[in-house]
């Protein structure tokens, strides 16, 4: 099984000389195994992927698209995904449940006339959106997919793909769970019991994140900020620091860790420096399971 990146940038596209290496398109991944393929997220990177699919596979093959969540940077490429315009083409879209509005309505709303000239209902492909339940696995060809809800301001799914004994876990737009009620400080002895219960809940949720990624050959993990950036005003924004991403990768015993959802302000040079810094740190760590660390790079393929 392998993964190719079509978009790695967080929040907003960032074309330009300083982002040539890691790329400026927003989230889009292609997972391949034998003849099967899955697309994850419809950020701006999906446009080029759609063109390639039509070129290489023609207009007949079905497309399976997994959406992590419906924030702009993960769906804004959908109106430019050519396969969606082809009559009779089967486009299966999977995504998270939403408490305010249905999943398909959220997708359709970004194509209202005020925003885009073609309405969602005018797309010619045979499109069927489906909302997913936590840890209920399903198969796309030879690839087994398992979704899990993670901590982000809007309901968001992480995905684990498994095939022929290999596994790739994709976890973006996720922040470690934390005590948002007490901030880690027990307010009074009267509330001690509730406080301890909350601490336990936080630990359990974070352990579930590690368990979900357990033993992955490749973990692609949100690492938008440095720990320092995270602690200085970005707590609660729904993203993970590079340091925490590495800790999760170590705890989960993953072999390859790819840092993802690069901050729009992060230049290639800065990211390279951060990767080198942490590679060095890992190399000095005894029994570190992570054999390979890098930033996810647009265009590049990694094999599990």
């Amino acid at each position, binding site marked *: 099984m392998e993964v190719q990146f079509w978009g790695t940038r967080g929040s907003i596209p960032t074309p330009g000389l300083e982002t040539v290496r890691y790329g400026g398109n927003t989230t889009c991944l292609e997972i391949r195994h034998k003849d099967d393929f899955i697309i994850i997220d419809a950020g701006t990177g999906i446009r080029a992927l759609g063109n390639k699919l039509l070129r290489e596979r023609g207009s007949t093959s079905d497309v399976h698209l997994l959406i992590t969540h419906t924030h702009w940077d993960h769906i804004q490429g959908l109106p430019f995904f050519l396969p969606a315009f082809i009559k009779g083409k089967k486009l299966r879209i999977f995504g*998270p*449940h*939403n*408490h*305010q*509005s*249905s999943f398909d309505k959220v997708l359709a709303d970004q194509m209202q006339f005020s925003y885009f000239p073609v309405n969602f209902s005018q797309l010619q492909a045979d499109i069927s959106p489906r*909302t*997913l*339940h*936590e*840890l*209920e696995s399903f198969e796309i060809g030879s690839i087994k997919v398992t979704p899990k*809800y993670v*901590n*982000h*301001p*809007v*309901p968001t799914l992480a995905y684990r793909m498994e095939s022929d004994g290999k596994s790739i876990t994709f976890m973006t737009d996720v922040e470690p*769970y934390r*005590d*948002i*009620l*007490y901030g880690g400080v027990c307010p009074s002895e009267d509330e001690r019991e*509730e406080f301890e*219960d*909350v601490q336990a*809940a*936080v630990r359990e*949720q974070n352990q579930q994140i590690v368990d979900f990624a357990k033993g992955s050959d490749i973990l692609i993990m949100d690492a938008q900020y440095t720990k320092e950036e995270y602690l200085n005003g970005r707590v609660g924004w729904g993203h993970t620091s590079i340091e925490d991403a590495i800790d999760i990768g170590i705890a989960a015993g993953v072999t390859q860790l790819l840092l993802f959802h690069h901050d729009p302000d992060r230049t290639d040079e800065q990211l390279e420096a951060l990767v080198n810094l942490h590679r060095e740190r890992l190399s000095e760590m005894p029994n570190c399971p992570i054999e390979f660390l890098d930033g996810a790079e647009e265009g590049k393929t990694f094999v599990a």
Partner: protein
Amino acid sequence: MIRAIDNAMDQIGSLNYTLPKVMRVVNDMNSTALELVRIIQMDPVLTARVLKVSNSSYFGVRPQPISNLRRATILMGMNTIRNLALATAVKNSFEMRAGGAVSSEDFWRHSVAVAVLSDLIAKRGPLSRQEGEKCFVVGMLHLIGRALLIQHFSQEFGRVVIEAKNSNVSATQIEQAVFGTTHKKIGMRLAARWKLPEELIDGVAFYDTPDDSDRITTWVVAVASAAIKRRATMGFVGDYKYPEIDKSIYEALNITESEVMSIVDTTLVVELDKADEFIRGD
């Protein structure tokens, strides 16, 4: 008819105080998740619903179901809990029969619009933060009497609305003819029965005749109510006439009528869109 209204008042029971509190937390950037949890906890219906959603099959497969609000908040995050709480509180407070002369959506929209606008006006003027909060609650609840009429006497109230439309007489005056009382008198009795604060009773009584009141909260709500009634998109509560508010009231609040309308057409529209999102969906 008066006896039937008394019965309806008994049926309503205790006023659901949760909605204004949840609205307050939603509108206050400084409010904390713990405050929200404490408010939800006081309302069994709301608590049950939040737990129901966090245990729904979407988040399924748990070793043990989520049994308390604190855990649900850690798991689902402040945003989701807040939106759920607000949507549920609103639905519970303004459940009205479909097909009546006034829909629950329209009634709710009007009440929220008056509440939020009152708050915005209060923030601009010489009021303390505490008074601003009171304005919000009074704005939200100043029509509780009418809510009772719409909920329990939808047919009769339908006649009031039709006559108000076809005549030059105010809906309140027609209420007096049809019910032998008005939504204002009913609202005052409800508020007194529930031991609600004085400024709320005053707001219920004088929101359309603020000259008769000496309370600044009532003046603010009066100005807000009149402004909202000028905009057809801001809900409907059965009135076709809106009162002219005396210049002296605007002067006391240090604001002009056109300034109020400009808040309505800019800031308020945005705020209400947010509120709309909350109420929609499940």
